[in-house]
C-alpha cells in the first residue's frame, strides 16, 4: 500500500486517483477534528472541504520534513481557526488564572450517560487553544511532539494547554447541572 507521501507525490504528477485515495484515508479524521473544533457538522464539513482544497492547491508546499498527516492536521487546524475567527463565535478568551478546580465529587455524577453533556458542547466551553490541544492529545491520541509540530508551539506549551484544557473541561462538567457552584458547595457542606 502506498504511503501518504507517495500518494501526494503521485497526485502532484497528475494522478488524481492518488488524491482521491488521500482523501479517503483522512477525510473522517479531519472531519472529526473540525467538528470538535467548530461544534457544528455544517461548519465542520466546510472546514474539511477547505482543508482538502488547500491540499489540492498547495500540495507542492508540503516539504516532506514532517509526516504528511502532520502537515494535513496543521492545514486543518489552521482552517478551523480561520473559521472561528470569521464567525467570531468562539473568540479566544484570556486564560483564566487561579480558577477554582471543580468539586472532587463531580466525576461520579457523570457516570450516568443521561447526565453527560454533549461532548461538543463541553469542548466548545473551553478556549480554542486549549480545545485543540485536548482534542489532539486526549481524543486523537497524538504524541506530544507531533501536536507541538502541528500547532507550531513547544512541547511544554502543548502539555500546559492540555492540562489547563482538562481542568476547564472538568470545571464545566462540574457546573453542568446548572446549579451555581456556591450553592452546590453549600449542598455538599
Amino acid at each position, binding site marked *: 500500500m502506498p504511503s501518504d507521501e507517495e500518494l501526494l507525490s503521485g497526485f502532484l504528477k*497528475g494522478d488524481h486517483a492518488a488524491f482521491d485515495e488521500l482523501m479517503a484515508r483522512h477525510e473522517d479524521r479531519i472531519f472529526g477534528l473540525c*467538528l470538535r473544533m467548530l461544534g457544528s457538522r455544517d461548519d465542520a*464539513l466546510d472546514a474539511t472541504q477547505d482543508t482538502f482544497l488547500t491540499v489540492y492547491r498547495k500540495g507542492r508546499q508540503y516539504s516532506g520534513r514532517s509526516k504528511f498527516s502532520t502537515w494535513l492536521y496543521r492545514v486543518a487546524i489552521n482552517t478551523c481557526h480561520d473559521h472561528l475567527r470569521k464567525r467570531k463565535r468562539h473568540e479566544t478568551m484570556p486564560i483564566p488564572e487561579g480558577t477554582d*478546580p471543580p468539586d472532587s465529587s463531580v466525576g461520579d455524577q457523570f457516570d450516568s450517560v443521561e447526565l453527560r453533556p454533549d461532548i461538543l458542547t463541553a469542548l466548545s466551553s473551553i478556549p480554542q487553544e486549549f480545545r485543540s490541544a485536548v482534542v489532539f492529545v*486526549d*481524543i486523537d491520541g497524538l504524541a506530544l511532539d507531533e501536536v507541538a509540530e502541528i500547532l507550531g508551539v513547544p512541547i511544554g506549551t502543548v502539555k500546559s494547554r492540555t492540562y489547563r484544557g482538562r481542568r476547564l473541561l*472538568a470545571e464545566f462538567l462540574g457546573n453542568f447541572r446548572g446549579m451555581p457552584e456556591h450553592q452546590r458547595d453549600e449542598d455538599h457542606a
Partner: protein
Amino acid sequence: MKTMHDHDLDRIAAVAEGGLSGQDLAAAQAEIAACAECSRDLQAQRTALAYLRQSRPITLTSIERARLHRAVHPAPTRSRWLRLAPVFAAAVALVVVAGVLLPNGGTTRTLLPEGKNLENSQELGSAGGARTPAEISSTTAASATTAMPTSDAMLSSPSPLFAKADELRQNPPANATTLCHDEARSRLDEESITASDVDYNGTPAVMYVYPKTALIFDQETCAFLEEIPADNP
C-alpha cells in the same frame, strides 16, 4: 513556599493518565496527597480524561461524504487542448464525413465560435487531413466534459456562451447568482466578475465569469461542465 503544584504539573498529569507505576507512582501519589490543590487538580484531570476517552470516532454521513467529494473533486489539470481532444476528434470526423457526402468541396454551413460562417467545410480541417493546434484553436473551442453534443450543435455551442461571457464582463448584473460559488471559487483563486444563469445544451447552468475565462456549472449539482477561455476564437 512552593508546592508541588507550582512546578510539577507533568507529574499530576502522568498520574492521571496512568503513565507511572511502581515506586514512581507511589511517590507521586504521596506527594499529591500532601497537597490539597494537587489532589483537586488530579481529580479534575481524571474527570476530564475519563470523559474525553469515551468520545467515539466521528464519521461523515453518506450525504456529507458525497457533498465533500463533489466540492473537492479535483479540477482538471490536463491542458485545455488535451481535454478538448475528443471534441477535436469529432470535429475532424465531421469534416471527413462532410467531404465524403459533399464531393468536390461541396458546400455546407458550419457556425464557428465567433459566429463566422464558412461556406466550405473543408476549410475547417484541411480537407480532412491532420489539423494543427492553431487550426483547431481557430475553429473549435467547445469542450464537453460531460455529454458530447452533436456535431453542428457542438461547433456552434461555444458561440452564444462566449458571447454571453463577454457581455457579462462588460455589463455585470447587479444581483448576480451565488449558486455554486464555492465550487467556482475552488476552480480559480481569483474572484469572479459576476455570474449568471445560462442554458447549456438545454440544461440549466450557471456561468461564472472571470477576466480571462468563464466556468460553467450544472445548476442543480454544481458539477463542472465547461471552461470557456476569454481568448476563445
